[in-house]
């Protein structure tokens, strides 16, 4: 066949059909576009976030190739410079840096977290480059880092006068801050003012944190933080050949609780930290792509099945198998191309939104980098294109094979493919059962480096397994229905059931799509509701204190905002207060992973608290044991580090690594990072730190009703210059639940998509079925069937599909929810979640799905009613 003839045939045979079935063609394109857009948006967002992070790290660290940082907490004593200074003799340059979160009080009284960077402005030019905005504008293109400019620009401004700072251009612009303005910062429980000496340009350090930072001379920053000679890091520039030597020397001389790493190491760690989040996004992408593939498969399969006799006719007329194959291949390519290109366009638009979500996660672990706009790389577009086209082709493959397998004889045979599926129902059933069995085995396997690979695989196999069983179920259920439905719905009932049975393959594809959509909805609903219930129960039981006190800075989001330890004694003196328990938490670097080291007053906790432990032991029993080198660890930490009761955890302290025996593991749903909690008196001794990050306040029983009065009394006591925040347990609880719901909002959006797509595929199938049944409808018209009766047949078919989809979806959804709760989530986050089924929600949404399924039958039903009897029958 000549190419021109092929194109002609393609136009007439395939393109006209696509145009005739606009709705379905559109749906398919939209499905691919959805998958590709989510994929692209997430990949752009992720890479943008990581590259901004890397950018910030290099801008703050300059040319440093080694850095000294604390293993516990965020700062350490600068006195270690003593040990570093001698290294200058071998060409090492060093510079201490402060790099801390502070809370900025804006003019509109809102707060936001910004980064305070303190550098030794006199010594620093070797490390960083700094330009003010004018210098930027004059010569240097933004982003150029040129050492020469630094010294000159720095001498222009009066950053050396007390309580002054430089402000990043982005921050300055957003908050309308300029030279001479004042910025107010919450640090711990204090409010500090700084005068802006200048606004920095975007090049060099000024471009770190995307220009959302405040830079001060290190002495000034230490004054602001009041941390008495402490620094966040010491950056080192060593001659390249000496770096290994320097590292060994430093390890020998520096205190044991300091880490010597490289800036790249820090980026590596950042990457690791966001990995579980990334995997979640990956799962989202995965679902979106699956949905797209499924739609392609669904549409193409239905098209091929519907057109079998026509394909047979073409074959009988001498069209070769390969030509048939090529035509459908071209159709798939065309749909894939349209879907992928529009997906790429939409994905680019979605990337900014996705970036916001990703940057929130970064903030949780590190610092805030406002990331308004994503910067995609060209290869990401290419990758998205390849993924879109590749998956489209994979999904289109089975229908392509199907099309090329049509023999010329089928031109005359109707429904030949149906008897084939009927014969295949048993093998399908066996395959389905085998896949489910395999899924079960996979679900028992452990995670691979914290990622539940087998859990996801098991979910995928369960979905395919259940879908394979659908033909068998339908082949047995539909004859039964055709026997009993007529008593309820008259002859329409029988016609609906028998027609569905007559086109078993299409019916199966539609029912399976709906089943999968509903299963996703059901499983996510079960997971969220179980989780929510577990969390509320946990809050209600383990949050025994009446009031919770923090510094303002901590309340506004700076995790290391502190209160002095003496505050606890002050609080205890307030009338009505029965007890106060100090709690301190510090970032902990443990084996290159992030967690928290915390310390608590276990004696108070033993009497008043109610922590829940995996062992089932009582709070008192466990807390009484927690003296000396014993610790309790949170469940996520135990899961991540694979620790059990009686094992030990090693934590870096200024006195060297210390081992703590795990006394017990407590349930903790507030964080998946993991906590190691040790006795506070020991913590004070080991780290010389008396401060706390929060205080749990227990009231006398008779004061509990006067909670607000006591709260006010405490606040009054600290009025003078102290900025603290006291929340009641009730407030904490509702805040926790608010955050919970917000976190899962995206999940809800996801299941709405899943169900919508499923319903669309039901509509898709019903359209195909109606077109297929045109002849039957025409005959019925001849026999005196009313239009309404024809509509009713289609609506009943929709209802049958809806019901089957619902039932199958409940079953599969149950399986998926078990996998989500006991395998996927457990392995990703380490939380034990108590299983609970939101019956109301599932019943309501089941009904909603059924109603919508029936509603999705309305357009095809109207098509059926419009059947023009004579023209259809004449087609014979």
């Amino acid at each position: 066949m000549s190419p021109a003839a092929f194109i002609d045939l393609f136009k007439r045979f395939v393109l006209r059909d696509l145009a005739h079935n606009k709705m379905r063609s559109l749906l398919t394109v939209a499905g691919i576009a959805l998958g590709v857009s989510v994929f692209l948006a997430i990949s752009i967002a992720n890479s943008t976030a990581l590259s901004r992070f890397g950018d910030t790290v290099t801008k703050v660290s300059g040319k440093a190739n080694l850095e000294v940082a604390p293993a516990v907490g965020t700062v350490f004593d600068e006195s270690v410079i003593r040990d570093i200074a001698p290294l200058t003799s071998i060409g090492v340059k060093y510079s201490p840096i402060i790099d801390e979160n502070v809370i900025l009080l804006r003019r509109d009284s809102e707060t936001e977290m910004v980064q305070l960077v303190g550098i030794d402005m006199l010594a620093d030019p070797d490390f960083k480059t700094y330009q003010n905005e004018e210098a930027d504008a004059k010569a240097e293109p933004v982003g150029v880092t040129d050492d020469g400019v630094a010294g000159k620009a720095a001498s222009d401004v009066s950053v050396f006068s007390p309580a002054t700072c430089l402000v990043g251009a982005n921050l300055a612009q957003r908050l309308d801050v300029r030279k001479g303005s004042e910025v107010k910062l919450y640090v711990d429980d204090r409010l500090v003012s700084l005068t802006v000496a200048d606004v920095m340009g975007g090049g060099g350090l000024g471009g770190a944190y995307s220009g959302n930072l405040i830079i001060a001379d290190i002495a000034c920053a230490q004054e602001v933080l009041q941390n008495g000679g402490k620094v966040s890091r010491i950056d080192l520039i060593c001659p390249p050949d000496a770096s290994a030597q320097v590292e060994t020397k430093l390890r020998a001389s520096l205190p044991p609780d300091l880490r010597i790493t490289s800036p790249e190491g820090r980026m590596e760690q950042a990457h690791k930290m966001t990995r579980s989040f990334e995997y979640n996004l990956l799962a989202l992408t995965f679902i979106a792509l699956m949905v797209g593939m499924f739609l392609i498969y669904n549409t193409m399969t239905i098209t091929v099945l519907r057109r079998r006799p026509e394909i047979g006719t073409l074959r009988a007329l001498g069209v070769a198998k390969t030509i048939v194959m090529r035509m459908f291949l071209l159709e798939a390519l065309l749909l894939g191309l349209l879907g992928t290109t529009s997906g790429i366009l939409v994905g680019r638009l979605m990337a900014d939104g996705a970036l916001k979500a990703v940057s929130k996660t970064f903030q949780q672990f590190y610092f805030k980098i406002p990331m308004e706009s994503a910067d995609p790389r060209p290869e990401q577009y290419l990758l998205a294109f390849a993924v879109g086209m590749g998956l489209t082709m994979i999904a289109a493959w089975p229908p392509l094979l199907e099309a090329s397998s049509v023999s010329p004889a089928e031109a005359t045979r109707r429904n030949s493919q149906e008897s084939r599926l009927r014969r295949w129902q048993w093998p399908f059933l066996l395959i389905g059962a085998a896949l489910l069995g395999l899924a079960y085995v996979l679900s028992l396997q452990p995670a691979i480096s914290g990622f539940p690979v087998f859990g996801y695989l098991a979910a995928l196999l369960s979905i395919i397994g259940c879908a394979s069983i659908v033909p068998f179920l339908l082949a047995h259920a539909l004859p039964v229905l055709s026997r009993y439905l007529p008593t309820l719905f008259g002859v329409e009932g029988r016609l609906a059931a028998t027609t569905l049975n007559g086109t078993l393959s299409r019916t199966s594809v539609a029912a399976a799509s709906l089943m999968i959509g509903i299963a996703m909805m059901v499983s996510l609903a079960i997971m969220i509701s179980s989780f929510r219930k577990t969390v509320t129960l946990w809050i209600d039981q383990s949050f025994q204190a009446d009031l919770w006190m923090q510094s303002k800075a901590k309340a506004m989001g700076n995790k290391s905002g502190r209160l002095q330890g003496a505050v606890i004694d002050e609080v205890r003196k307030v009338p009505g207060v029965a007890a106060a328990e100090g709690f301190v938490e510090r970032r902990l670097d443990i084996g290159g992973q992030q967690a928290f080291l915390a310390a608590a007053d276990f004696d108070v906790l033993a009497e008043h608290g109610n922590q829940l432990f995996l062992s089932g032991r009582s709070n008192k029993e466990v807390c009484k044991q927690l003296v000396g080198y014993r610790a309790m660890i949170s469940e996520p930490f135990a899961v991540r580090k694979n620790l059990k009761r009686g094992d030990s955890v090693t934590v870096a302290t200024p006195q060297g690594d210390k081992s703590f025996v795990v006394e017990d593991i407590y349930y903790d749903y507030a964080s998946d990072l993991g906590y190691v909690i040790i006795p506070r008196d020991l913590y004070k001794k080991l780290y010389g730190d008396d401060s706390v990050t929060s205080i749990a306040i227990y009231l006398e029983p008779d004061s509990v009703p006067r909670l607000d009065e006591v709260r006010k009394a405490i606040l009054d006591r600290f009025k003078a210059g102290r900025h603290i925040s006291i929340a009641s347990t009730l407030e904490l609880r509702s805040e926790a639940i608010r955050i919970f719901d917000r976190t899962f909002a995206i999940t809800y959006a996801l299941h709405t998509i899943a169900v919508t797509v499923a319903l669309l595929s039901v509509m898709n199938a019903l359209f195909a079925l109606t077109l297929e049944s045109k002849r039957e409808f025409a005959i019925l018209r001849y026999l005196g069937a009313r239009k309404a009766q024809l509509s009713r047949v289609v609506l009943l078919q929709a209802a049958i599909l809806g019901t089957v989809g619902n039932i199958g979806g409940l079953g599969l959804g149950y399986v998926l929810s078990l996998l989500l709760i006991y395998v996927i989530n457990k392995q990703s986050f380490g939380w034990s979640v108590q299983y609970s089924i939101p019956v109301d929600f599932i019943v309501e949404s089941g009904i909603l799905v059924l109603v919508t399924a029936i509603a999705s039958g309305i357009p095809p039903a109207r098509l059926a009613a419009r059947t023009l009897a004579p023209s259809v029958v004449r087609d014979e």
Partner: protein
Amino acid sequence: MPLLQLVGVSKTYGEHDVHALKQVDLTVEDGQLVALMGASGCGKSTLLNVIAGLDDIQEGDIAFDGISLKGLSDEKITAVRGEKIGFIFQFFNLLSTLTVLENVTLPLELLGRQSHKQRMAAAREMLHLVGLEDRDQFFPAQLSGGQMQRVAIARALIHKPKLVIADEPTGNLDSDNGAMVLALLSKLNKELGQTLIMATHSAEAAAIADRVIQMKDGRIVT
């Protein structure tokens, strides 16, 4: 009063302005067996569809059983067709997913009249009449062409229609089966007094008719 009366009926098909029927006048009395003959494309099927109210007409009037079909709503015409007309097609047009018995009871079920029992009894009676009572649980695909057409005849008659319309009922059958179907139709007409209008090409078919009408280019010529 005649069962069917067409006065000046004209039918034009849409875009291409095909004048399928031109000023057709026709009267059919109760109990007649009318054969409609003419070359392919002369308008036989169109005439039958128009009589059954399946196609609308541009001019003229059709009165069936004392009711004028002109201006009736689709709903009403459907009701008339369901109750009073039975159809037999060239290609049988049985529903492939229904059994023989279910195909035959279909018109009664669509009307929603009679109990299940009565319908079954009526269907068995009809199947007996066409000699296929032992095939009631078969699917159409398991029958021969002649058998399928006999099932179609049973289906056309089950609700005791005033008029049976047959469009080339033997057109797709070999001569033996064709003869059997014609004998059956003739018997129905003679013994039950069933009114029948049949479009046909074949002389054998015309031979059983009371009246033969010749059509040419959308007109009745005799």
